[in-house]
């Protein structure tokens, strides 16, 4: 009991300290803004107002947190066994490609069959997108960070090709997008907002991630690999198989995010279905130290920054990049502080 209390205590303390240090990022960016003749307080107030000041803003925060959570788990699951999956962006697009193929091919299916099929296709597409770098790692020893980064470019370009070529809507007056999906392929949205059924996917993914790690043999073996691959291998844990599995499941979840984006938000495939959700999801996972609950918190936080970034762009004429700078500085701070925490533990 005492031990448990201490563990909770130290966790809370770590989170609090991280929060304090995250404040540092805002100070640094503030100085940066002053340097460029902008008022940082105004900018931060606008981020806050834009994201949380209206019910629309708040609902948009949730809308963005959905793909962020899914992409974060896509990074976190392999990360718990020591793999760095920077590919959720590509895997999201791979899922979207598979879903679009299904939506355009089986246009006339009834909704109760159609939607689950599209979910499955999204999962499958994303899984394939992550299986390839996993296989390269297991069979040829290719570092998965580099291969997932490179595949991001490839898959996004493939989407560009498809929406401007084979899948282009003939009625689009040269706009690069596919025909709109039939209604039976659309995910429901709620409460008159853009919040959609993808939210349930995201929350389920987080719960499943938590339960798997804590309470299954699979999660246990995964954690052993992440902690000491040498000992894991000697204990007969098949590291290669776990690499394929963890990456593919992660990729599948990113693919699901892609499915949700096109089936709920866009209604069709087009370039820019993701405003860097994959990369931001990667950051969410690292900022949350790959912990499930942390992922929820960080996804919402970065969702706030993302919506706020739009609103400073519109009302203050500040570049959206401002919030990217804040995010990457927080990332640096977390990376640096992980060392200190370990050293003092």
């Amino acid at each position, binding site marked *: 009991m005492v031990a*448990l209390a201490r563990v909770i205590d130290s966790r809370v303390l770590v989170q609090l300290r991280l929060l304090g240090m995250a404040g540092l990022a805002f100070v640094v960016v503030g100085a940066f803004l002053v340097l460029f003749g902008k008022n940082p307080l105004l900018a931060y107030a606008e981020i806050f107002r834009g994201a949380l000041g209206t019910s629309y803003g708040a609902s948009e925060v949730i809308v963005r947190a959905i793909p962020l959570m899914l992409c974060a788990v896509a990074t976190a699951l392999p990360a718990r066994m020591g793999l760095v999956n920077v590919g959720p962006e590509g895997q999201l697009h791979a899922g979207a490609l598979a879903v679009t193929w299904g939506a355009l091919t089986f246009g006339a299916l009834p909704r109760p069959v159609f939607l689950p099929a599209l979910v499955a296709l999204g999962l499958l597409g994303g899984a394939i997108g992550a299986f390839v770098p996993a296989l390269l790692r297991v069979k040829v020893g290719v570092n998965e960070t580099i291969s997932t980064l490179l595949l991001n470019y490839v898959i996004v370009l493939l989407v560009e090709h498809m929406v401007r070529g084979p899948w282009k809507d003939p009625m689009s007056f040269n706009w690069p997008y596919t025909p709109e999906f039939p209604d039976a392929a659309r995910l429901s949205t709620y409460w008159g907002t853009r919040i959609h059924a993808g939210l349930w996917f995201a929350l389920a993914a987080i719960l499943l991630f938590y339960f798997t790690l*804590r309470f*299954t*043999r699979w999660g*246990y073996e995964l954690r052993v690999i992440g902690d*000491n691959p040498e000992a894991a291998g*000697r*204990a*007969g*844990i098949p590291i290669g198989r776990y690499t394929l599995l963890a990456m593919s499941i992660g990729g599948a979840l990113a693919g699901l995010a892609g499915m949700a984006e096109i089936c709920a938000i866009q209604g069709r495939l087009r370039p820019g279905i993701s405003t860097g959700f994959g990369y931001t999801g990667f950051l969410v996972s690292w900022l949350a130290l790959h912990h499930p609950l942390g992922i929820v918190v960080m996804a919402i936080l970065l969702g706030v920054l993302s919506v706020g970034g739009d609103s400073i762009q519109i009302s203050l004429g500040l570049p959206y990049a401002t919030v990217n700078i804040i995010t990457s500085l927080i990332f640096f701070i977390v990376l640096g502080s992980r060392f200190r925490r370990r050293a003092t533990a």
Partner: protein
Amino acid sequence: MRRLGSGARHLDCSVTGVYLRLEGITKSFPGILANSNIHLEVGRGEILALLGENGAGKSTLMKVLYGFYRPDAGTISIDGRPVVLDSPSDAIRAGIGMVFQSFMLIPAFSVAENIALALPRLGVWLDSGQIRERLRDLASRYGLAADADAKVWQLSGGEQQRVEILKLLVSGARILILDEPTSVLAPHEVDGLFTVLRTLRDDGYTIVFITHKLREVMAIADRITVLRKGSVVGTVPRDGTSEEDLAEMLVGLRDVRATSFSRAAQASEARTVLSVDDVSVRGERGRAGLSHVSLHVDAGEIGGVAGVTGNGQSELGEVVLGRLSPDHGHVYLEDVDVTRWSTAKILAHGVGVIPEDPLRMGVAPGLTVTENMVLNERRRFMPGAGLYADWRAIRRAIEARIENFGLAIPRLTLPVGTLSGGNVQRLLLLREIGRRPKLLVAFYPTRGLDIAATRMAHDLLVAARNAGAAILVVSEDLDELFALCDRLVVFSRGTVVGTFKSGDVDAVEVGLRMTGGGKREAWSPSPA
């Protein structure tokens, strides 16, 4: 002389012309006083042996002397002048050179490049002609020949040690510290090393020789300083002491001789559990090969593998555990051919293992003791599809098991990384023996353990043997092997060079076999 008090004893052995002097060196780490008020003097042209058991504080003292650690108190002076050593480069400047147990050589570099690294006032351009000349010069003077162009990873342990010593000499070191230098050598190579050291001594070098082997001390040292539990017990001249005296100083007032275990009556139908049949593995960079190795271990028997580390013992273990697939031959577990089985399947078949490097190979340091205790019985504690692990129940089961063995294990919720090395080894022994394996492969089962823990480990192994397990112990420590084993297999260069029943053989014979029958080659001084 037979009875020793706890106080330090200084015979009359004042040195004329002290070159290196340590006064009152104290160094503590959280919870440990590694060095306590240590005094030590060595003269020019003298070999001082620093004698102590594992954990007596020898390594800490030497790291203080080499600038790795800063002492909490005390001074170091060289040639009468006090020096402050905050980093190895300070030590090098002060003329101190050190041969570590694990060599400070870069395997991918050539010998010349490694030597160049050690050169003081190295010019901007690497002058390989100059380095070659120095090497030739030193080779003829001290019998330390080395091929300048060979890559270090291609060299044997003895050759690498030679490069280490050459490095110190070219760097201008006047004080040479050698940390357990014979541990990487075969006995016949030891003579060669000693010849070199004597020549160096006669040339005026100051040499500190760290060891725990009495025989070597008597063979090479001029004076001997004994450390115990971080303090100097005494300093004696070699000519005024004996191995027995030193042994008493080393361990204090207790029986020095290794305990011998009473053998359990062999089961009448000696059932062979492990059988390795004519196994060969090709040697590769950084790993020894195996050549036609055959051995077997019966139920209720402890089989020992003796050999200098790196002669194929690790590879034998890897083959038995299914981590290395042999090019030739078979491995049988109770007459089942397991040669191509996966590690997981072999472990599940009732094979336990204590790996060479427990912290690196045997545990996940970030996970708790409980989580680590179930590592090799995952399917038993998380049965079926493994979809629900009841950690509370698992913890209770582990607690019960620990109680059964009457052993103290630190709190089960602690991460294993926070435990001491001895406790990690204890955890491993308990984990593997607690599984009641048919076969236990134990590498260096007492490495890093203190005397009490060693005894506990031996008791556990013998008890498991008496309960019917087949145990294969791999060790370098002949005393341990003789104390434990019913049968002994001697390894040299990846082949079995002798199989003995306990009692049929003495340590000298085994030592000779371990090193290839006393052929003199690697370390013999090259003709000048």
